[in-house]
C-alpha cells in the first residue's frame, strides 16, 4: 500500500452533451508508485485529460458524472468535500496544463500567483514568499528570475510560461505532479527544453509523475511505464521500452507507426537512453 501513491480502479467519466451522453473515460484502472513516472498516451479526445481532471476533482458536477475509485496515499478522493480537496490540490498533487500562458491570470503578475499559493498553503508572508519563489524559479532554470516575478504572462514566451507554471506547481512540494500535455502548445525548441527540464527534475526531486501526452517522443523520454488510451479505454500497458519495442495491441502499433517517421526520431533514441 505504501508503494503506490495513486491507485485508480474502474474509473468512468461521462459528459452530458446536447447530442447525448459521451463516455470519455471507460473503466480505467492503474497505479502510480512513488518516484515512478507513468505516461498516458493517446490521440486527442481519447479521454486522457479527463483522468487528470478527475484526479484533481475538477470535473464539473453539473454536466459530468464520475464513477469508480480514486485513492491517493490510501485515502479515497471520491466524495471528498471542498475543504478536503484544498488539502490535496496543489499541496499533494500538483499540475501543469497545456497552453501555459492561459494558466496565468492576465490581471496578476507571475509573482502574485506564487504569493497566493504560498500564503494559502503555508501561511507565508510576502517577503518569505518572494524568497521561495526565487528558489523555485531557479530550480526550473528560469533566466532572469527576479524580472519574471514582476512580469505578466503575456510578456513571457510560451516556454518561459511553462517553466513558471512548473515552478508554481513545485513550490508547494507536491508528492505527485500531473503534466497534462505540457509541451503541446509550445514551439519546437521550447518543447525540447521543457522535456529536458522535466527529465532533470524527475531525477533531482524523485517526484512521482503522471505525464499525459499525445507525443510519444515525450512519453518515451520520461516514462518508466506507459498506458495507451483509445476511445476512453486503456488498450495496452507495460514498461515503456517493452510497449514501444513490442506492441501487442493493433492500435498501439498504429500509433507508433504514425509517430516514428515524423519529428520524434531523436526523442526515440532518448528512449533507449532511459532504458
Amino acid at each position, binding site marked *: 500500500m505504501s508503494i503506490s501513491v495513486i491507485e485508480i480502479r474502474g474509473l468512468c467519466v461521462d459528459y452530458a452533451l446536447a447530442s447525448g451522453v459521451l463516455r470519455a473515460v471507460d473503466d480505467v484502472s492503474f497505479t502510480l508508485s512513488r518516484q515512478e513516472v507513468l505516461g498516458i498516451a493517446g490521440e486527442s479526445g481519447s479521454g486522457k485529460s479527463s483522468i487528470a481532471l478527475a484526479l484533481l476533482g475538477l470535473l464539473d458536477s*453539473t454536466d459530468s458524472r464520475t464513477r469508480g475509485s480514486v485513492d491517493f496515499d490510501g485515502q479515497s478522493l471520491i466524495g471528498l468535500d471542498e475543504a478536503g480537496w484544498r*488539502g490535496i490540490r*496543489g499541496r499533494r498533487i500538483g499540475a501543469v*496544463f497545456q497552453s501555459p500562458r492561459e494558466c*496565468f491570470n492576465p490581471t496578476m503578475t507571475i509573482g502574485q500567483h506564487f504569493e497566493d*499559493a504560498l500564503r*494559502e498553503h503555508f501561511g507565508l508572508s510576502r517577503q518569505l514568499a518572494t524568497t521561495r519563489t526565487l528558489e523555485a524559479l531557479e530550480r526550473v532554470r528560469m533566466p532572469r528570475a527576479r524580472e519574471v516575478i514582476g512580469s505578466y504572462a503575456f510578456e513571457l514566451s510560451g516556454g518561459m510560461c511553462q517553466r513558471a507554471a512548473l515552478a508554481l506547481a513545485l513550490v508547494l512540494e507536491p508528492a505527485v505532479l500531473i503534466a497534462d500535455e505540457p509541451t503541446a502548445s509550445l514551439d519546437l525548441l521550447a518543447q525540447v527544453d521543457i522535456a529536458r527540464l522535466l527529465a532533470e527534475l524527475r531525477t533531482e526531486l524523485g517526484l512521482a509523475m503522471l505525464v499525459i501526452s499525445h507525443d510519444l517522443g515525450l512519453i518515451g523520454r520520461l516514462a518508466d511505464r506507459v498506458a495507451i488510451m483509445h476511445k476512453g479505454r486503456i488498450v495496452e500497458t507495460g514498461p515503456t521500452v517493452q510497449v514501444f519495442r513490442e506492441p501487442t495491441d493493433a492500435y498501439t502499433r498504429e500509433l507508433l507507426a504514425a509517430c516514428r517517421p515524423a519529428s520524434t526520431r531523436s526523442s526515440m533514441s532518448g528512449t533507449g537512453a532511459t532504458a
Partner: protein
Amino acid sequence: MLRFIATRIAGVVPQLLLVSLLAFGIVKAAPGDPVASLAGGVEFMSAADHARVSHNLGLDQPLPVQYGRWLARMLQGDWGSSLKDGRPVFEVVARALGYSLLLVGIVWTLIIVTGIVLGYLAGSAPESRRDTVISGFAALSFAVPPFWLGLMLIVVFSVGLGLLPASGSARIGGSGSLIDRAAHLVLPVATLLLTQLGPYIRLVRSSVRDTLSAGFVRAARARGLSRRTLVRRYILPNALTPFITWAGLSLPLLISGAFVVEWVFSWPGLGRLFLQSAMSREYPFLMGCVVVVCTLVIAGNLLADCLVAALNPKLRRSHAGE
C-alpha cells in the same frame, strides 16, 4: 497607456462636434421668426428695424458663421433664454441637472452593486434554481416599460396604501427634512432600478460563466486556492472588465429610463424639463438638455474606457514596450 488615453480623447472631439451640430440644428429648426418673437410679433416691427435687429443678432450671416458665433456663446455659458418667459437656459438646465444627477447617481450606484452581486450569484451556479430565478427576473426587467411600473407603484404605494409620496422632490410647504426628501426618492429609484437592472445582470452572469471556464481559473483551482481568493483575485477582476465598459455604454439607456421616470414622478430633473419643453416647443431648453446629456454620456464612456485601460496590464505596459 497615456497614448491610449490621448487617442481616446482625440476621438471624443468629433463626437462633441456632432452633438453641437445637432443642438445648433434644434435652435435653427425652431418655428417662427426669432427676430419678430423678440419684439412680440411681426406687426410691431418695421422692415428696417427687422433688418437691423437681424444684423445685430448675426442672423443675416451665412450658416457656418452663425454656427461659429453660436458655439462661442455656448462655450461662454450664454445659452440663450426661454422663448416664452425669458428664463435663462443655462441656469434652468443647471438646476435641473442637479436633481437628475442625484436620481441617476443613486440608481447607478445601486445598479452596479446589485448587478454584480446578482449576476455573480446567477453565473457562478449556471442552470441552478438560483440562476433560473435571477435570470427570470432579468428577463422580466427587460420587458417592463419604466413609466408603467412607475404608475403601478404609485397606484399601490401612494394611492392604495398611502405610504409614499408620488410626485416632486419634497413636500410643498414642508420643512424639506432629509427624511421627507428620501421618501420622495424611494419610488423613482425603485422604478428605475427594477426596470434597468436586467442587462447588467445578464452581462455579469455571462462574463462570470466565461471566466469560470478560463484556463487560469482551472489552474488556480488545481492549486487548491480558497474560494475567497479565487473569487476576489481571479474571477471578479477578469469578469468585471466588460462590466465597466458596459457601465459607461449603458448610460444612454439609463438616462432614457430616467427621463420617463422623472416625468411620471414629477421629479424636477432634466428629463422632466426636456419633455415639458418638447410639449411646449421650447427649443432653447431642448437644445440645452441635448448638449448636457450627450456631453455627460460621452464623458462617462471616456471615463469607463480609461478605467478599463488603467486596470488592464497589457495597455498599462504598452507605452514601455514601444
